[in-house]
C-alpha cells in the first residue's frame, strides 16, 4: 500500500516540477478576439533580456489591438520547436506563430510547410516561405553611438566588452562600438572577453572582473543580464546597458545603452495581417530589419534618456575633429573638417542615422580589419549580407576572436 503512495507523491513532484518549468502556457485571454497569435520564446520571460523584451512587446500589442488574443510558451528547447508549434496550432488554435530564436529557424520553416494555411514569422533568421516572414532589430548603430561616448570617457584607453558568443551579430556590435570609440579616441583599445553563454550571470561577472583587473575602465556588453552594469558600478566605473533599460541598476554609472522596441514590428505585422495585406501567399520577401530609422531600437540609459545627465558635462568638454565627407586612411578628408564636442557628435550621428535617407552609417569605408585588410571599400557601405556574415575584427579590438578570417 505504502508503495503506491510513494509513487503517487513522486509523480506529483515530478509533474508539478516539470509543469511549472517549461510549459507555462500563459493565456492572457482577451475574449472574443478574431486573430490569435502564439509566441515561442527560447528563454524564460524573467531573464530581463531577450525573451523578456519580446514578451513586453507582446503585452503592448495585446493591449493595443482589441481584436487580438495572444498566448506564449517560454523556455522552449530549440530542437523541439515543431512540437510546440503543433500544440499552439492544434490546441490553442492560433492563426499566427512567432518564433524568437535563431535556432528555431528550420523547425519553423518545416511547420510553415506543414500548415500552409497559417502565418509564421521567425526572428533573426534568413529562411522565408510564402507564409513565413523574418524580422530582426539590430543594435549596431546604437553601439556605435555608445562607442563615441565610451571613447570620450575612458581614461586608461582600455574599454572592456563582455561578449556572449563569437557570432556575426555580436562581432558586428563590437566592431561598430569600436569604430565609435576610435573615432573620438584614435589610440583607445576595446578589450573583449567571451563567456560562451547568452545567460549566465556568474560568468558575466567574472569576465567583467577579469577586464577590470586588466585595466579597463568603461564597459559595454552583449549578453542577457544586467551583470556587467552592476560589476562596473561596484567598482565606480561607467557602463552601457544592453537590451532592457538598465539605468535603475546604477543611476550614477549607466551612461547610455541599447533599448529594443520589438512592438514596432509586432504592431505593424499584425495590423497588416489583420487588414489582409499579409496573407499565406505573399510573405516570401517580407524581411523586417529594424534600425534607428525604423524606431525598432533606441539609444539610451532608459527610454527617453539618451545620455545620463551626469555624463553630459564630460561629453561636452571633450572636443573632436571630424570629417564631414569621406575620411581617407591617410587622414585626408574629401569634404570639410569641423571641430565639435562628443556630445554634439552623438546628436549629429543620431539624427543622420534616424534620417529617412540614413545619411550616415558606421560601417562606411574605408574600413580595415585588425590584420590590415581593406574590408569595406572607401565610400562604400557594408551591405545587408556583409553585415549578417561579419566575421572580421576592426582595428582597435584586442583579445581573442574565434573564427577570424
Amino acid at each position, binding site marked *: 500500500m*505504502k508503495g503506491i*503512495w*510513494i509513487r503517487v*507523491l*513522486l509523480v506529483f*513532484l*515530478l509533474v*508539478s*516540477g*516539470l*509543469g*511549472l*518549468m517549461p510549459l*507555462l502556457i500563459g493565456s492572457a485571454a482577451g475574449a472574443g478576439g478574431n486573430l490569435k497569435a502564439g509566441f515561442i520564446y527560447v528563454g*524564460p*520571460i*524573467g*531573464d*530581463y533580456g531577450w525573451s*523578456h523584451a519580446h514578451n513586453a512587446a507582446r503585452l503592448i500589442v495585446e493591449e493595443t489591438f482589441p481584436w487580438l488574443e495572444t498566448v506564449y510558451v517560454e523556455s522552449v528547447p530549440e530542437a523541439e520547436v515543431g512540437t510546440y508549434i503543433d500544440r499552439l496550432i492544434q490546441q490553442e488554435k492560433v492563426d499566427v506563430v512567432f518564433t524568437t530564436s535563431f535556432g528555431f529557424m528550420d523547425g519553423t520553416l518545416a511547420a510553415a510547410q506543414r500548415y500552409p494555411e497559417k502565418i509564421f514569422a521567425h526572428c533573426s533568421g534568413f529562411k522565408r516561405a510564402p507564409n513565413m516572414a523574418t524580422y530582426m532589430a539590430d543594435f549596431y548603430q546604437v553601439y556605435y553611438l555608445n562607442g563615441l561616448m565610451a571613447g570620450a570617457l575612458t581614461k586608461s584607453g582600455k574599454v572592456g566588452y563582455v561578449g556572449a558568443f563569437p557570432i556575426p551579430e555580436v562581432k558586428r556590435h563590437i566592431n561598430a562600438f569600436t569604430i565609435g570609440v576610435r573615432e573620438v579616441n584614435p589610440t583607445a583599445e576595446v*578589450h573583449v*572577453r*567571451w*563567456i*560562451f*553563454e547568452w*545567460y*549566465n*550571470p*556568474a*560568468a558575466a*561577472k*567574472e*569576465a567583467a*572582473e*577579469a577586464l577590470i*583587473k*586588466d585595466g579597463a575602465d568603461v564597459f559595454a556588453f552583449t549578453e542577457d*543580464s*544586467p*551583470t556587467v552594469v*552592476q*560589476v562596473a558600478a*561596484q567598482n565606480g566605473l561607467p557602463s552601457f546597458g544592453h537590451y*532592457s533599460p538598465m539605468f*535603475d*541598476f*546604477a543611476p550614477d554609472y549607466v551612461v547610455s545603452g541599447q533599448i529594443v522596441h520589438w512592438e514596432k514590428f509586432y504592431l505593424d505585422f499584425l495590423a497588416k495581417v489583420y487588414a489582409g495585406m499579409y496573407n499565406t501567399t505573399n510573405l516570401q520577401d517580407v524581411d523586417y530589419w529594424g534600425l534607428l530609422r525604423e524606431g525598432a531600437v533606441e539609444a539610451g540609459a532608459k527610454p527617453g534618456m539618451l545620455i545620463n545627465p551626469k555624463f553630459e558635462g564630460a561629453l561636452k568638454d571633450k572636443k573632436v575633429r571630424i570629417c564631414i565627407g569621406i575620411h581617407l586612411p591617410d587622414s585626408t578628408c574629401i569634404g570639410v573638417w569641423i571641430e565639435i564636442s562628443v556630445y554634439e557628435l552623438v546628436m549629429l550621428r543620431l539624427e543622420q542615422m534616424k534620417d529617412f535617407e540614413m545619411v550616415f552609417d558606421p560601417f562606411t569605408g574605408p574600413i580595415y580589419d585588425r590584420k590590415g585588410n581593406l574590408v569595406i571599400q572607401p565610400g562604400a557601405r557594408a551591405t545587408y549580407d556583409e553585415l549578417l556574415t561579419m566575421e572580421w575584427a576592426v582595428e582597435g579590438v*584586442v*583579445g*581573442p576572436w*574565434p573564427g577570424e578570417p
Partner: protein
Amino acid sequence: MGWETWLIGTISRALAYGTPLLLGTLGEIYAERSGVLNLGVEGMMVMGAFSAFATAYTTGNPWLGLLVAACVGGAFSLIHAFVSITLRANQIVSGLALTMLGLGLAGVLGRGWEGKPLEAALPALTVPHLAKIPGLGPSLFVNQNALVYLAAGLAVLLWFVLYKTKIGISIRAVGDDPATADAMGVNVFRTRYLCVLLGGVLAGLGGGYLSVAYRPAWTEGMTAGMGWIVIALTIFAFWNPLLGLVGAYFFGALYHLSYRLQPWTSPELLKTMPYVFAILVLALVARGTLKRRMNAPAALCEPYIRGEE
C-alpha cells in the same frame, strides 16, 4: 603587470566566486555523509536566491534576506528528506524533482521581481589593519563579503565536528552502516533528517549570497548550474569539509582564470578548463592508491529500513 597583481586578483576572485560553491558543498557533504544523496541543490539554491532577494528588497535588510534564504532552503530540503528517508523512495528521482520544482517555483514567484536593483545589498568590506599586510591583505581582506569569511570559518567548524566529535562519528556511522549505528543507539532517521536539513540551509544561504551580495539582483534561473558543480565538488572533496574548501576556491580560481587568460589562449579551451581539471583529478584518484581513502559513504543512496538486512 607583475605576477603579484595576477596572484592577488586570482585569489580574491577565487574567494568571491568560490563562496556559494563552498556553502553548498559543505551542506551536501553532510547530507551525503549521513547516506542521503540530494540532487536538489540547484533547486534549493535558486529558492534561497529568490527568497533572499525578495526579503532584502522589501525589508531593506540583506541579513534578514540571508536568514530567510537559509530557512527556505531548509524547508525545501525537508521535502526531499520526507520522501527519501521516511517514504524510502529513490533519492535520485526525488532530488531531481526538487531541482525542477525549485527552478519552476522560483521562476513563477519571481515574476515581476526581475529588473529591480537591490538598494540594500550586502556591502563588500575591507578588513581594517589586516588589509595592510603586503600580498595577503589585498588578496584576502579587501572588497570581500562578510559571508566569505563566515563560509570559510564554517568549513573548519564542520570539519572539526565531523572528525573530532561524537556527533561526527554518529553521522559517519549512519552513512556507512545504518543498521550497526542503529544497534548502537544512534537515531538513524533523526540524524539523516538533520543532515539533509543542514544541507538545505547551507544551499539556501549560498543562493542568498548570489542574489544579495555577489550580484545583487534577481533573474530567473540565476544559479545557472552552480548546484551541479556542488555535487561534483562533494566527490572531488572526498566528502571532507576542508578539502571542500580547497576544491571550491580552486574551482573559483580556475573559473576566474578562464576569463583572465583569454588574450593568450583559445577561449573555448579555457572555458572547459575548470571542468576538465575536475574530471582529471577524479580519474587519477579513482585509479590510484588513494582509492581506499576516497571515503565514499558506504550506504549512500540506500534507504534504511529497520530490521532488514
